[in-house]
């Protein structure tokens, strides 16, 4: 759009036509205060804080509703404007309870800030303030009515941005109040966006209220550990007896891929971390019972037993199951540990999407995987299957607001009338389980239309033609589309100019688990076992035949050939239905936070740290890699990373060969200690040098493995500086063209809704407390991981 020139307080400002005066002022660092104005929500002009003088206008004008025009002269700091702001603050404080000393928002309240900057120090009023009682709207949302300044941000974010429309205004005049949709309580998505967006302490969080003061917390920006979308969440962390306690999750700095957004899980469901049922000491089975032990005893026992089995029965007698919620570094380390230390390729995880097929289909198109940010900006989006509102709340937010703010065209093909159809240009209902046929049809297999239900052939051909005509289409699908159907879909998309893809997996690091090679037949970066040369060079000796997948492991255990079973942060008994009795004669080691169904059958249980208690990286379902930051030290548990290293050590393995750590000097020493055997320079040290990175000093530092991941896993060579700065970066993992063959039966999507989150969800008081959790959508298989 053409630029418009205006003058604000004597400063020349140039901004695109259509810019609001308040935004134009912001662009040159002139603050125009406001309560009701909020970017990307509808304009209100209600709080009158942004009144400024615009020349040729007799009255002061609201900068939030005034569109700039050529030659406009605005004044934001004369006496008249200052007086207007002062009087607005005076009027707001008139009926405001001023209970700042106990208010949750104290210290981070916009009304406090405005009073400090623009307000008056004395009150002109003598009458009693109007009082209204506080209300509890849900276990997680409280409304302290007198504090409300009626900026209507909550009403708009709930309606316009969330498409929930659970809040409204009741009464009129000075007795106006914000009211929830069910008279005295809320029934909604419980996202808490209304609390986050409230400029004062009117809406408060059931989890956080009256717990602490903002300045008494550490604020740690990390990644949510629940679904696969990878929202940034800022944890409010306090010291406690066990080291630290997380008391709040929010995203007020709007810095992540999620902008303003967080769902109920990101905002409240960190509370599993201080559940009393957490395992806090290593347990060893003695006389049939799990009994407390020491870490030393546990590691020694595990190391001894795994080494014995490996040496006596061969590595094939040991199976390993990794997790969708451990970091990339832990997953990579586990993959390497299994193959190099335990000498087994029998490693697997709960697969929630056919990522190998996706990686194979993306060969030659490394930039055709869409980022989470792309989803907000694409002109057209196709969603086949899935219910993003429930399963991928951020993805749904991106789609919804893209449609609302950019008028993107959304095409939905689904077997159910999912909520996103309300934003859709076109909604096409198909019979359950025919998503694959829909993909095949789009890919050119006209006969697949037969399976797609009542829609006529012409309708389907018309839809396909229409989609072909969409430039820069983003195609989103989940585990319902697998194998050759993914190839067909990518083939279809390739015919559309600039098409990009998102393959949806269900947990916080499902994509990372797949990328890091938690497969019996793939190494990190979807490199087939048969083509292991790179990793052999780097990792050393490892078995070359594909290992067992998780159900084969259970069969082998039942048959007595699987002697060792090492489960890291997963619950294959509870989640995948493995028979625990099959493992009766197997030495089972489980690293977990809780005594899950799998942990209950273990011989050794090691209490593990969760994603908020350790550092590393996660890769979200779009392939965006982000930094996971440790919220604080906790006693009694160890990170999975440290435990894997300690077990390797206990087997007698030289840890330095597993984790490239150690200060071996500068470039003068090109890592002779590692490269000596072959006579080559140490490639790792050379790579570190080339990237300006220091060798890591501890075998327990996940960054040491991140160095190796970035060096060896194709597509993970993103900027370390950006990563450390907390920015999301897109990985471009592609397969080697041979990844298409997967046992489709092994893919078990989580089927979580907004209020469940596998095993973790069971231990979240917040998730279990809300009314919507008690009346979930049609009962779907309870998932766990």
């Amino acid at each position, binding site marked *: 759009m053409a630029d418009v020139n205006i003058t604000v307080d004597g400063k020349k400002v140039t901004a695109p036509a259509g810019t609001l005066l308040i935004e134009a002022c912001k662009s040159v660092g002139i603050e125009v205060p406001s309560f009701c104005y909020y970017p990307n929500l509808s304009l209100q002009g*209600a709080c009158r804080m942004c009144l400024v003088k615009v020349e040729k206008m007799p009255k002061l004008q609201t900068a939030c509703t005034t569109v700039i025009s050529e030659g406009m002269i605005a004044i934001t700091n004369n006496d008249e404007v200052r007086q207007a702001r002062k009087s*607005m603050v005076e009027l707001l404080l008139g009926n405001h309870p001023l209970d700042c000393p106990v208010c949750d928002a104290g210290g981070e309240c916009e009304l406090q800030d405005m009073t400090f900057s623009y307000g008056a120090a004395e009150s002109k009023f003598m009458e009693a303030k109007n009082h209204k009682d506080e209300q509890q709207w849900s276990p997680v949302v409280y409304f302290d009515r007198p504090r409300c300044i009626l900026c209507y941000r909550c009403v708009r974010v709930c309606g316009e941005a969330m498409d929930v429309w659970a809040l409204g205004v009741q009464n*009129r005049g000075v007795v106006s109040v914000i009211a929830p949709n069910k008279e005295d309580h809320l029934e909604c998505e419980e996202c808490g966006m209304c609390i986050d967006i409230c400029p004062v302490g009117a809406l408060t969080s059931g989890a956080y209220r009256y717990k602490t003061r903002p300045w008494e917390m550490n604020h740690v920006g990390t990644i949510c550990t629940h679904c696969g979308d990878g929202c940034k969440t800022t944890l409010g962390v306090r010291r406690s007896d066990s080291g630290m306690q997380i008391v709040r999750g929010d995203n007020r700095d709007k810095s992540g891929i999620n902008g303003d957004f967080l769902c109920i899980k990101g905002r409240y469901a960190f509370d599993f971390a201080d559940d009393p049922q957490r395992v806090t000491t290593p347990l060893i089975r003695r006389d049939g019972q799990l009994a407390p032990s020491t870490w030393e005893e546990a590691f020694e026992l595990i190391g001894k037993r795994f080494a014995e089995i490996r040496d006596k029965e061969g590595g094939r007698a040991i199976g390993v199951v990794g997790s969708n919620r451990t970091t990339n570094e832990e997953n990579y380390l586990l993959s390497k540990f299994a193959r190099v230390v335990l000498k087994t390729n029998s490693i697997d995880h709960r697969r929630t999407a056919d990522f190998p097929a996706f990686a194979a289909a993306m060969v030659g198109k490394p930039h055709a995987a869409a980022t989470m940010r792309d989803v907000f900006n694409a002109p057209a989006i196709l969603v086949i299957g899935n219910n993003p509102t429930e399963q991928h709340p951020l993805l749904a937010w991106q789609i919804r607001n893209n449609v609302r703010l950019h008028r993107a065209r959304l095409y939905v093909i689904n077997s159910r009338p999912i909520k996103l159809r309300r934003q859709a240009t076109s909604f096409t209902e198909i019979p359950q389980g025919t998503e694959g046929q829909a993909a095949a049809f789009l890919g050119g297999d006209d006969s697949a239309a037969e399976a797609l239900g009542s829609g006529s052939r012409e309708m389907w051909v018309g839809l396909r033609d229409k989609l072909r005509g969409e430039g820069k289409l983003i195609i989103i699908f989940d585990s319902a589309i697998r194998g050759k159907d993914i190839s067909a879909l990518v083939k279809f998309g390739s015919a559309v100019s600039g098409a990009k893809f998102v393959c949806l997996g269900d947990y916080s690091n499902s994509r990372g688990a797949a990328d890091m090679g938690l497969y019996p037949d793939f190494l990190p970066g979807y490199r087939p076992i048969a083509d292991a040369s790179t990793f052999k060079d780097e990792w050393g000796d490892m078995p070359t035949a594909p290992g067992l997948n998780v159900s084969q492991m259970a069969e082998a255990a039942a048959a007595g050939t699987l002697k060792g079973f090492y489960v890291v942060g997963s619950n294959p008994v509870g989640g995948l239905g493995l028979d625990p009795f099959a493992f009766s004669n197997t030495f089972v080691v489980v690293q977990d936070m809780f005594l899950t169904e799998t942990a209950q059958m273990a011989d050794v249980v090691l209490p593990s740290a969760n994603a908020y208690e350790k550092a590393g990286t996660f890769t979200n379902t779009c392939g965006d890699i982000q930094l996971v930051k440790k919220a604080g030290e906790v006693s009694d548990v160890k990170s999975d990373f440290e435990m894997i290293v300690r077990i390797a050590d206990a087997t007698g393995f030289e840890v330095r060969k597993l984790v490239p750590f150690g200060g071996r000097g500068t470039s003068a020493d090109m890592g002779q200690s590692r490269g000596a055997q072959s006579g080559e320079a140490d490639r790792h040290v050379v790579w570190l040098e080339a990237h300006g990175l220091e060798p890591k000093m501890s075998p327990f530092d996940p960054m040491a493995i991140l160095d190796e991941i970035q060096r060896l896993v194709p597509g993970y060579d993103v900027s370390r500086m950006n990563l450390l700065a907390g920015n999301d970066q897109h990985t471009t993992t592609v397969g080697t063209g041979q990844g298409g063959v997967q046992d489709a039966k092994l893919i078990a999507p989580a089927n979580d809704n907004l209020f469940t989150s596998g095993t973790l969800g069971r231990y979240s008081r917040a998730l279990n407390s809300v009314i919507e959790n008690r009346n979930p959508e049609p009962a779907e298989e309870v998932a766990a991981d």
Partner: protein
Amino acid sequence: MHLVSHPDEVKVVSKRFGKGATDLDRYLALDGYKAVQKALGMQPDGIINEVKNSGLRGRGGAGFNTGLKWSFVPKQSAKPKYILCNGDESEPGTCKDRLIFEHDPHAVIEGVVIAGLAVGSHTGYIYIRGEYRYLSNLMQKAIKDAYARGLLGKNIFGSGYDFDVYWHGGAGAYEVGEESALMESLEGKRGIPRIRPPFPAVVGLWGGPTVINNAETLASVPHIILGGAEWYSNLGTPKNGGTRLFCLSGHLNRPGVYELPMGYNLKKMIYEVGGGIPNRKKLKAVVPGGSSTPVLTADEIDAPMDFDSLMKAGSMLGSGGVVVLDETTCIVKFALRTMKFYRHESCGWCIPCREGTDWLEKTLIRLHAGGGLKKDIDNILYLSENMLGRTFCPLGDAAAMPTIAFVKKFRKEFEDHLEARPCAFEAAGSVERLPVMA
């Protein structure tokens, strides 16, 4: 409502009052629907020019030239255009639209249809305030009768032009008299004003270009079409064409609604048309155009009642509601009663009006009850002046303007209430005393 009359009256809008014109046959016999038939033979621009030249200015209170307002409606529009009759008459002291609906509902319908012909609209809505339920029944009957006779609906008067008229009732909100709030209400939402621009002429009801006029304005239109712009214009003063229904109330011997030429002298209106003050009391003040217009003192009433002259006198012609206060009136109580109304009617959307009216009322209650301090008077002015011109819609101004005038013109009366002195106008003990707060 009891009809009154006075020889100075020039009956245009009120000419069918009391003549049974709610009956369609009777209305037709009294030149009814002739203006529509004439307008059907005119060019749209011709209709607009006729109205423009007549000097007809909006009778709702703002006094904008009606023909000019119509001319802002774009000729071409992808969305349907609408004609809205604002019958949400709620301004205290105003009861003129009520008489029109009661005695001459077809004149409003006719005005709506002519406005439609002028701007190329095919749909009209007549929005009547919720409290006028019995009038709504009359209006609904009038619309039904007109449809039955082919005067509304498809092919009106066999002209090939279609025009539909609907009635819509309010839910009891003064705020909805504001044109954009009325559109919100009509669309089924809370009656909250809209951000402008865009103005209704471009983006109005359901997003379509919309003409919204007061009921009296629209009821004047058929007479202009039949009588001609020049005739109508000459009834009033230059730039203030025609006649106007003045609602005389308060301390008068003959209160009532009188149709007088624009520019009629206020003093004459009070003492001759209204029959003067009862019991030979002295005049204290006059609110000249509904409760939101600044009060005039007894010395200020020798003024012509037209939009421009009253503006010059520091007040406004407003909605034509003339409220006369004699010397027994307590101005503080009157200010309090006025503010009570605005506090009750504030929609609550914006801070200054929502909070300001509440604090003004609270302060005035205490002041009137003897609990006031000198600084309260300054605070009343401070609050009003900080509301004025800064609210989302004119309701805040409507509350602030009269308050400022009450304090400035009758400051002594406010001061007489201070420091526990009883109100001189109330019977002893009739006002609950409030303590002075330090």
